């Protein structure tokens, strides 16, 4: 069995290729929502922030973990909400047919 770090590199490289493939054809109209939506996904570091908040490691760890949770949560909550708000404004060519979502 390979080292965890090697497995991590494998995952990272493959995921990068998936990212390039999935995003390469996004039309310019959606560049801003794509950026703010993907930005919210980079807030996945919130998982690390939660794990870092183990107690009994001293005040410094608590302070670092606390600010990590706050900033990551701002990134996640704000990023997804603002993307949703933006996309809610994108009007479809035919204003009457609003079958998708309808919000």
């Amino acid at each position, binding site marked *: 069995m390979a080292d965890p*770090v090697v497995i991590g590199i494998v995952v990272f490289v493959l995921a990068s290729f998936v990212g390039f493939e999935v995003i390469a054809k996004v*039309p310019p109209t959606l*560049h801003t929502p*794509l950026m703010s939506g993907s930005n919210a*996904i980079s807030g996945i570091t919130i998982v690390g922030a939660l794990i870092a908040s*183990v107690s009994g490691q001293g005040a410094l760890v608590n302070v670092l973990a606390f*600010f990590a949770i706050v900033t990551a949560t701002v990134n996640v909550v*704000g990023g997804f909400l603002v993307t949703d*708000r933006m996309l809610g404004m994108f*009007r479809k060519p035919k204003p009457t047919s609003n079958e998708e979502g309808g919000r």
Partner: protein
Amino acid sequence: MNANLTAILYLVAAAAFIVGLKRLGSPKTARSGNSVGAAGMLLAVIVTMVNLEGVSWWLIIAGLAIGSAIGAVLALRVQMTAMPQLVAAFNGFGGIASALVAGAAFVTVSGAELASETILTMLLSVAIGTMTFTGSFIAYAKLQGIMGGSPMTYPGQRAVNAVIGAILLALLIWAQISQDGIPFWLVGVAGLILGVLTVVPIGGADMPVVIALLNSMSGLAAAATGFVISNTALIIGGALVGASGLILTALMCEAMNRTIWNVLFGAFGGDGSGAAAGAGGNAISTTPDDVAIALAYAQQVVIVPGYGLAVAQAQHALRALTADLEKRGVKVAYGIHPVAGRMPGHMNVLLAEADVPYDHLLDLDDANTTLGRTDVVLVVGANDVVNPSARDDSTSPIYGMPILEVDNANLCVVIKRSLSPGFAGLDNPLFYMNTTRMLFADAKKAMTDLGKALESI
């Protein structure tokens, strides 16, 4: 929770990110795609919290509550014109969060001998995360108008940046080998400084590239943190964002015919030297009444918006004008240059807010095809992206940048407050062409005046 089940659930979260991003690629599915991504994130957070043991719950709950409140207020109150700076700020928060996690992990394991790859990924996370943080907030300050948008330069700037970069590299090597706290934290300090110094010399109109690049970096910082805590959801999510940011960065550079190095280190524009005064000639000014008549009797009208539209908050007034034209049977399209505005897709969001259907927005190639058979083109707050020098004058600094060829239309009306050069500090020969008329006004006032003049026709 069983470790295998946990790993599978993280994989489900990562798959949700991929599906979500895929759906963000089409206007019809984009909103649900964003929700799929958010659901993946919620799953990842829940799985993590179920597995937590021996943590300070008060700290977690307080952090989540404060972060959610700040994020929600920012997201729901921001004006669409201020979207670039908000995205920049969110990038910065994501970057610093990754750096803080790596810092906390370093303190937690301090004393023990670390595997070389562990300390390396911690250091990378701290370096990238801190640079993203300060770089993003300098971009925020420039976009928000707290700092001037023009490039700030001083003699020896590149040398200073190179020295700081070299110091950062030396600190990384020192920390990597010694695993000592002092160089570890100094890496963070150097990252903070380098983030400031790198973005300060970059001008406002290059911000689309900067924001896309910072977006990519916030993803890479998250991926590095994923290595630190051996979590595949972070590695996959971070890699996806890193890739998407890089694609947008490349697209923006391509749209300006410049390399990323030129954008980052060129301190482009703003010095006002060169041919600014010379080219000249007589610009012909016009009145709202004359323009309204031309618009009312046109068959095809194209609107070319730029950053001036956002500054003047003129998108709704513009939409009112074009709605009136459409009622009269005039075909109206919008030509959107990829780097118009201050972030990728900035104009599209503004026009969407003003209720313009997205299929009326033409990209560069389609717009240029349409401009060949256009009666009237209205240039609203755009300048460099319609500068014919980029096409005709091989000595121009922007030569080779693809432009919207508005001079191919029968009549080109440029709405601008004055004849002052654009961001690049270049004169624009378009203003002096026979088929060009200048309407000197603030974009919003011009739109309102045109609307009134049109009513009386």
